[in-house]
């Protein structure tokens, strides 16, 4: 009897161990990106753009070319790369502080120009790298370093819903929100990320995948408890679903 490999590390993922905290969702999301790149056979022409935040070292974990951008500017950098090398597969990988706070202008306008790039947006409602400050996506009442009494809508506003906002624009072709709180949802997230890159490979428009994720360290919870907390608290505010699928990529797949 021989043994067949059912699951192992995708080729586009480098051998470097992740620096992320135990249980952090970034590792799985990185792997899903690498799997999509491998399945679409575009690893030799993919260029990633790393953000500022916990995933600042994303470039260490993939086996293809990378640019490391300034905080929030990844969509502008990706615009420059994609316009210069239109046959490349260009994606940004950004957190909620990077994309939904300091980089709001860059993401909205890259989306609105319909840049033919893919954006992977990891929303865990907190700044991780700097030690747990309030993010634009922090929930009402959620305690962070900079909202020690809980986020108060009257002074700090409400959680920004980026997918919904971007879906109001004409140009993006695919805007979806997924999570990886269970294996079933993880497989849906895998499909969404695949769809987003497939659209780019086909030369279509701007694709955006928001992944609602956990931050066990800064939430002060165990990883498994964090996924439960996410399900009960984040998903009511950030409902899963596809907000825009102009070309019907989900049906065609």
């Amino acid at each position, binding site marked *: 009897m021989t043994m067949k*490999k059912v699951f192992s590390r995708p080729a586009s993922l480098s051998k470097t161990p992740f620096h992320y*905290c135990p249980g952090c969702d970034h590792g*799985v999301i990185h792997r899903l990106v690498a799997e999509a790149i491998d399945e679409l056979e575009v690893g030799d022409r993919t260029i990633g753009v790393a953000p500022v935040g916990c995933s600042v070292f994303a470039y260490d974990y993939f086996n293809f070319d990378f640019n490391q951008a300034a905080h929030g500017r990844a969509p502008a950098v990706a615009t420059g790369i994609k316009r210069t090398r239109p046959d490349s597969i260009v994606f940004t990988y950004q957190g909620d502080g990077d994309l939904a706070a300091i980089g709001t202008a860059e993401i909205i306008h890259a989306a609105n120009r319909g840049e033919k790039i893919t954006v992977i947006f990891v929303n865990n409602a907190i700044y991780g790298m700097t030690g747990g400050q309030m993010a634009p996506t922090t929930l009402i009442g959620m305690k962070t370093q900079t909202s020690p009494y809980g986020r108060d809508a009257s002074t700090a506003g409400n959680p920004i819903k980026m997918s919904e906002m971007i879906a109001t624009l004409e140009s993006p072709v695919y805007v979806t929100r997924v999570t990886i709180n269970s294996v079933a949802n993880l497989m849906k997230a895998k499909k969404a990320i695949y769809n987003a890159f497939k659209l780019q490979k086909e030369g279509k428009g701007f694709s955006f995948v928001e992944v609602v994720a956990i931050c066990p360290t800064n939430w002060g919870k165990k990883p*498994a408890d964090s996924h439960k907390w996410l399900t009960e608290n984040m998903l009511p505010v950030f409902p899963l679903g596809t907000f825009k699928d102009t070309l019907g990529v989900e049906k065609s797949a």
Partner: protein
Amino acid sequence: MSKWVINESLCKGCGICIARCPLKILAYADHLTPKGVYPAAITDEAKCTSCAICARSCPDVAIEIYKEEK
């Protein structure tokens, strides 16, 4: 050869695989890795169906899954 192979040097002991295993055949090992982590371990490999839920859930891509081929 095992169906369930872990690279203990990558495991951070987060316990997500243990929580998600549908057959409840994963548990923390009773030894520490050089990083000071109690890694995940399989308690009853004969029961393992190679479903790969643990491996797909692992944030550190520390688990490889094999299946017996007839």
